[in-house]
């Protein structure tokens, strides 16, 4: 397998992790607003 697949997996992993973190950020933000 070309090691470049690992590189692509790294980049996609970073994008997914970023969106997950942003999801939790907005979730917390909404929770704070409700209070």
């Amino acid at each position: 397998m070309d090691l470049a697949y690992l590189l692509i997996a790294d980049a996609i992993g970073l994008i997914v992790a970023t969106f997950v973190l942003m999801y939790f950020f907005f979730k917390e933000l909404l929770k704070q607003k409700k209070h």
Partner: protein
Amino acid sequence: MLELTIYDYMVIVGYFVLLFVIGFVIKRKVHDLNDYFLAGRRLTLPIFVATLVSTWYGGILGVGELSFNYGLVNWLTQGIFWYLVYLFFAFFLANRIRKSNLYTIPDLLERFYDKKSRFLGAIFNFIMVTPAPYVFSMGIIFSIMFGWDLWIGILLGTIVIIFYTIRGGFLGDIYTDVLQFFLMMIGVAMIIPIAVQTYGGFDFLTANLPETHLSLTGGWTVQMILVWGFLAFWTLVDPSFYQRCYAAKDDKMPRKGILISVGFWLLFDICTTFTGMYAAAASNAGVLVVESAATSYISIASALLPPVLMGLFLTGVIATIMSTVDSFTFLGAMNISHDLYKNIFKKDATEKQVMNMTKIGIIITVGFAVVISLFFNSIVTMWYTIGTIGISALIVPILVGFFYKGKKSPLASVLSMVAGSATSLFWLITGYLNLDSWGWPQYIGGFEPLYPGLLASFLVFVFVNIVHMRRMN
């Protein structure tokens, strides 16, 4: 100057508009000094991670230069060494810092030693957080993008930062950091899949790069590699790490937050290192024109990315730099208002006076950084000089304060800071007075200034502590 489409400009302008909007909105959330300095110590885990990751990563142009010129060794020197120190920080310092319930590193020095240590610590702290290298990077990016003179980019970028930092304090800083975090991660990550698709996989890299680019040590000498290893100790005395730990919601969170941040840095560093390597390989293969190593990211991005994505990538690069400038600017301002003004020169200052002094401090810090950046004219030289002097001065008194349980002499702390910084400064100056034919400084005994600085600081501390404590007894 880059050729950008109207859509790219719209993305970039949209980013600046959002920064202004955050600056306007955030002021309403600031109720007292605790909000202004530490966001009311209510930092949640996602914000902690976003602000730490984005603030700590400002040197994207330097990383581009290293990975373009030397390849994989960039990951060792700018990544792996640092992860080890981050882990040490996470497991042995982070939660303790939060428990101390203080505001700054000089606060800690006063708790460990005395007011004189606070005063000296504040001065070195101020030097360490000068955003000069990043202000300079900002000027470079704007001059590449729009063809402006360096000073115009520096001036406009700093005006935007001053606006939202003065209005929102630390809150303004962290909420803009969240936006900047998102942009820098997405902007940098999207280029790798496109580079692989356009140029090919590892075969393309091995065919067009020298072998050293693909070796983890890059053909560097052990001493060269170790110097970067020692510079990673910067983390242990870095004010932005401490500030975020102080601001965390509870005393368990900083450790968890740093561990998650290490994951982000790891993924991000691999992307930046290989982007630089793809730029070098494409340049060697004759399919990409790269004007300079420092701007190799911009060159490869403009060759590969379509409109809008190019704008997003550039916004990611700007965000990476600006998130560091704003955080460092605010830390410098806190040094002036909290550490010096409130705790040394005017102890009866009211909250309002301290807040006003912080706003003045923001302008002083930025002004100082602009002057320094135009004087030095090199990002790497600035990093190296600031890091060497600051680490030599602060690391011994802080680590001793945390880990040595016996009696500690305040005099030992002060003299160790003076000895460490003076020794490394002396080494730096003599090195720059003796340049070799390539223009590189020749240091006394061939030792990089950080080593004698740390040694002097440590020896002076131990010696003075023993003598002083005996006399006191």
